[in-house]
């Protein structure tokens, strides 16, 4: 199913820049000549909840939601969110997960536990996994907030959109002052050996 439509799912916690990353990916697909649909869940993100953005692109896209088990790529800026949404990824899909932990209130209040050995669990459910310290890599470029762009760059290796589409998209989305940093962070992520 969905053999002609590529699904990409991005997850994280509010404030991590998931929605901007999704917009850039959607724009790159659009510039590459595809029909594109995206979906975002709003509102709760600012109040500590999870964020999920979905992108579908192909010659003709119907559902704006990616069916479970069909995503070609899953990008996660937070570990628990990667685990929580693992079933969106196709069996041969690429997971790119940042080794970042943001404690949910249920954990910080002591009513739930943050999983230990998160990396182990991730490797168990994602046969193709790139586990990277996106925040650390972004920090090496001067701004930890560009972690979303590092992640997107790594994720782009699992999609076959042309580099020019990514370049043009990164240079037309987001705040003007951030664009050079975003492109640098994206390229850094894209250059990582998966």
């Amino acid at each position: 199913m969905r053999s002609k439509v590529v699904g990409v799912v991005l997850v994280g916690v509010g404030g991590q820049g998931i929605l901007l990353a999704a917009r850039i990916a959607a724009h790159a697909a659009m510039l590459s000549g595809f029909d594109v649909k995206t979906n975002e869940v709003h509102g709760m993100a600012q109040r500590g909840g999870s964020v999920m953005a979905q992108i579908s692109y192909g010659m003709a896209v119907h559902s704006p939601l990616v069916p479970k088990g069909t995503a070609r790529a899953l990008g996660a800026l937070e570990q628990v969110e990667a685990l929580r949404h693992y079933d969106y990824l196709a069996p041969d899909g690429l997971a790119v997960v940042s080794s970042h932990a943001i404690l949910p209130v249920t954990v910080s209040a002591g009513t739930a536990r943050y999983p230990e050995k998160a990396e182990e669990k991730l490797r168990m459910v994602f046969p193709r996994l790139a586990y990277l310290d996106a925040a650390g890599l972004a920090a090496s470029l001067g701004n930890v907030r560009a972690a979303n762009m590092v992640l997107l760059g790594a994720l782009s290796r699992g999609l076959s959109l042309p580099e020019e589409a990514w370049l043009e998209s990164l240079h037309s989305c987001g705040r003007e002052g951030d664009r050079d940093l975003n492109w640098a962070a994206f390229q850094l992520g894209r250059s990582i050996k998966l």
Partner: protein
Amino acid sequence: MANIVDHGLGSPMKRLISGNEAIARGAYEAGVTVATGYPGTPSTEILESLAGYEDVYCQWSPNEKVAFEVAAGASCAGARSIVTMKHVGLNVAADPLMTLSYIGVEGGFVACVADDPGMHSSQNEQDSRNYARFAKVPLFEPADSQEAKDFTIMALEISEKYKTPVILRSTTRVSHSCSLVELGERINPSREIGLEKNPPRFVPIPVWGRPMRIRLEERLCQLTREAETSAANRVEWRDRTLGIVTSSISYHYAREVWPAASTLKLGFSYPFPDALLQKFASRVENVLVVEELDSILEEHIKSLGIACQGREHIPGIGELSVDRLLASRAKIEKRETPPETRPDLWHDLPPRPPVLCPGCPHRGVFFALGRHDVVVTGDIGCYSLGAFKPLDRMDIILCMGAGVSMAQGLEKAGERRRIVGVVGDSTFFHSGITGLLDIVYNKGRSTIIVLDNRTTAMTGHQDHPGTGRTLMGEATKEISIEAIGRACGIERIRTVDPYNLQDTSRAIAEEIEADEPSLIISQSSCPLREKRRLGEPLRISAERCQACKRCLALACPAIECPDEMPSINQVLCSGCGLCEQLCPFEAVVRNQ
């Protein structure tokens, strides 16, 4: 950068926009000059987006009934108008809707309603298509952003041609998904503005209302012909074994799950295009109706004597999806769904629910309320989150404004505990004032707390009559909640600082004992909106902390205690000081 696109998908006039932005664009292109609404997810962005265009007057009204009436007035005067709301907002606006179809409209009038199947951010899920049939008005249902724009324009044209209000009904997945839209130019309105002096046309007192009723039925017949030939309704012939009748986002899901089936996609779905339904059904072997929530299409199709399947296989609770419909298809075809082989990880994953932000003023009020044995009737907004443990301080929520009125009901029934009603500032202006009048006029004694954070927060920080600013950004009168309380006849009114736990608690203690109604106004701006800290971040002194964990009762996301010793996250802490006030060991200290 050279244009790398062949077939124009990236061309300047095509944009990737949300359903809501597309509805706004449609209204703009169709020459709408007046737009009103009340914030409500998933509809809020329609008006916010429209307010960014030139030549469209946009306003937030105190509630959807008023918004609807304002737009109706504008339309009767000749201006193309829209009103926007979520599904429960249409309930509030139902009274003017029902009679507007009698007196009719002049300039096109479209009520844009966004349903929320699955209750992503609502207290119920309801199928607003029912209102079209109930009010006897046309209904349009876009399935994606291009249709959201095109159908808004079509709806305004139909509205004007037949002088009828029209409902444009969206859902969360249409409103908040983005898809490609080709933009067009605005047609500038050319109608003369002015209410025609013609009481038999506009005044539905019975002698004039009864002929309106008859004309309404005649109009429905004409609209049926219109729907039967509308470009918004489309038959797609493929394999004739199965014909699917569907509308809205369900169409797209059905296309993925049954790619070979023929489909009748309804976009102008009321009045029912009977001739089209009959023709389609007669040319396929089996008819399956795929619709969310209520079985409106299915029941109507059966009433025409057409055999079809639907709700027995397609779930009516919650939203549909490709995944759910795949299961439906397997059931219909009597295939076993393969057993779940994926590991169940979710059992061990910590939930990440939405919570009150660090520094939220509501936290202080709820915590103070926690010290008293009271029943709390609550309302809709960010503060609804006070219902969750550990704050656990909201016992019942019904709908907008009921936080005030239910308090009166509990009291008159004989509730023995003291009763406190909690309502936000925007909700107060929406429908709390009439409840307050009831308490005073009907001799109640409840204590009502208005949580005044100077904004309509949960929906994205919109202005309201208490903020002193309009949607268009102009300064205006700032209406005083205290003055309204006095005008309602309440004599015991006090304002508290929600960051002062002791004062707030004392105010509550005194007011709940009073033998007359009280109004407590908790006043402090939403820190998320202001994007400001309330003070320097606090920290917990390891020497003084005894790990009693009393601070965790505040449910503040900045206080972290995954193990034994709590600590304060320096990035998240807003410096509000509530934890400092409640620590019995003075272990919470300000950074030097």
